[in-house]
């Protein structure tokens, strides 16, 4: 994995350099993974339903919070730019650590932040926040959606019980395309 906390021009520079050095394949792959994950984040918002009182107004934004360093670069902003989900625009917030977390609807926990997963989960406990983790580890079993990368393909696993406990409804279509962790089955 690369350090994703570099600035965008830097990233582009690196990518350009890698391209020139004909090892751009790896750099592009990294970039593609998070581009895909950015699209997935946006899509999660479409396949999940929040309780109606979650939004102050019918056009209040769906806030995507990112805990820890942002691995998406401009990809997420580009993906959600101008898009709406059921009338709600989308917005991105960045939180350095668990203590910084404010009201949000979808919370992405980047790889470095997984260390304080318990704190983060506590911070959003009882709130209708769809939690997404960049990795699936033992520490992330209570996180509702966990990305998995296998054979260069991005998948995800779902903890449907956690989502139900948070008063969130996930579309059956989302559940169907998730990788086999039926709801209620405890993760190791």
């Amino acid at each position, binding site marked *: 994995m690369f350090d994703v906390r570099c600035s965008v021009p830097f990233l582009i520079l690196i990518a350009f350099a890698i391209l020139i050095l004909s090892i751009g394949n790896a750099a592009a792959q990294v970039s593609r993974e998070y581009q895909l994950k950015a699209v997935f984040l946006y899509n999660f918002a*479409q396949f999940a339903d929040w309780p109606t009182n979650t939004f102050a107004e019918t056009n209040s934004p769906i806030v995507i919070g990112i805990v820890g360093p942002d691995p998406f670069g401009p990809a997420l902003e580009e993906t959600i730019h101008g898009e709406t989900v059921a009338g709600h625009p989308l917005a991105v917030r960045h939180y350095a650590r668990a203590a910084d977390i404010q009201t949000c609807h979808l919370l992405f926990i980047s790889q470095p932040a997984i260390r304080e997963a318990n704190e983060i989960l506590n911070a959003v406990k009882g709130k209708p926040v769809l939690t997404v983790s960049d990795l699936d580890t033992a520490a992330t079993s209570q996180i509702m959606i966990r990305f998995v990368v296998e054979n260069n393909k991005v998948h995800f696993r779902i903890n449907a019980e956690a989502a139900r406990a948070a008063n969130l409804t996930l579309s059956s279509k989302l559940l169907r395309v998730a990788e086999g962790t039926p709801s209620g089955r405890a993760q190791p």
Partner: protein
Amino acid sequence: MKPSNLSIKRKIIFITMLTSIIVLTVAVTAFLTYDVTTFRESLSRSITTLGQVAGENSSGSLAFNNDKDAADVLNSLRFEPQIIKAALYTTDGKLFVSYPTNAPATAFPDKAPSVGHVFKNGHLFVCLPAFRENNLKGYLYLESDLRYFYDRVKIYAAIAALIMFGSVIVALVLANRLQKRLSEPIIALADTARIVSERRDYSVRAPKLPPDELGVLTDAFNEMLARIEHHAITSAFLSAIVESSDDAIIGKDLTGKVVSWNAGAERMFGYTAAEIVGTSIERLLAPDRPDEERRILENARRGETHLYETVRIRKNGTPVDVSLSVSPIRDAHGSIVGVSSIARDITERKRFEDEILKLNAELEHRVQMRTAELTSANQELEAFTYSVAHDLRAPLRHIDAFTRILQEDFAGSFPPEAAQLLETIRRGSENMSRLVNDLLNLAHVGRQELKREPTPLNTLVEEVIADLKGEVAGRDIEWKIANLPTIEGDPGLLKQVFANLLSNAAKYSRPREHAIIEIGLRKMNDETVLFIRDNGVGFNMKYADKLFGVFQRLHRAEEFEGTGVGLAIVERVIKRHGGHIWAESEVDKGATFYFTLDGLDRPKPTLPLRGAISPSTRRV
């Protein structure tokens, strides 16, 4: 059955069948077209709906790039056998997943086709967008095999063909049954017409029908037959009359061409009908009268009927005298369409006419000769009678004169018997003298020129009665005189008539104590007749024809004196006045003399007379 009968039946069946088949074809075609159209629409709609469901279902797979799940979704389409291919394309148009899984990628379009549906080559191609919450996730491409659809159309077409076949059979059976109601009256009518035309039998009638159009037609046909029948009978009578006529009866058209030629014409002119009908009548014309036929035709064309006497030439070249009655023949509308010419052979008549003329002339000549002979004999006889009578008067006068002298001068010297004889001689000579006078009178009446002047008969009668006064003195005679007319005649002669008749009446009624003599006028057998009636002794009708002969007497002279010439004179005078006289009587019951006179029927107006002119009764 006749071919014509078959034909009308066939026509009706053909028309019925044609109509049924056309109607059925149109109906079935419309039905099939409608069905195919709606079925295609509903098919594309159901495929589209199916695609929308599948697209919706695959939106997650597309959103999260899950080809396995997408393949599952597409695989679920296998329950719809019409769908033979399906594919999901990503939003940027790249092929994502295809169904069936074993199909090569080349079987699908490289890029997502434009959204919509299209029928092509027996397949339905549908392309739909797959959305999640109004966000495009990709495209679903479906290909449906229309084989099921076409199978269904084929089944429909087969059912339609079956229905059509069944309907046509039913229509055929129905038409075959029902056409009889139409065709049978027509066939009956046609049969009747055929019998009429083949046998010329106008007494047959078409069977009576209910009063629809066919009924009206049949009635009209029967009515027409009745008229033709009547016409045929009349016509047969007429032709029989024409054929049996001795006259030549010839029909010509207005150009002079022969149209009909009867047996009389064949006999008269020697041409048979077959020879001359259709040719011009001109071959019958006499060469010296070339213009005649043209003139005859012109007269007929003007509508005039004329009688001609002319000459025609027979087939053997001999002439025949004919009288022609030529009249125009008119059609029902009154326009002249031909000429009828009735020719009668008048050769015989001409010959008789000539003969009669000759005989008449001969007879005339003979009558003249005889009349002349008789007239001269009569004149000689009358002259002889007159001269005898005239010559007898002198010796009679001598006898009378000398007998008187003897009686007067030597009355005392004769014995009474001689005086008696002398007296007889004298009366005999007086009688003879009277007889001679009467005979002279009779001769005179015959010879005398008749005067014609108005003669009032009443005046005449009065005068005669006055003259008779001496003769009837002392007798009771009732005269009944009617009002008599004035007529044109000879007053002297007529007076003699009345004198003779009235003196006869007075004479023969002498035995009656009360004599009645009536002079009257009456109508008998349309002529006015004068009559003189007495109630005297009368006479036996057996001798009535002798009454008016000279010297004919029905009574002895001792009883009633007379010469037997008086009534002969009367008859002669009346005859000369254009009348005649007759008498009726019965012995002892009186006699009536009737006579007519010229002008009695149209008398001169009676001149006003002194005294009564009404019928009067008077005692003398």
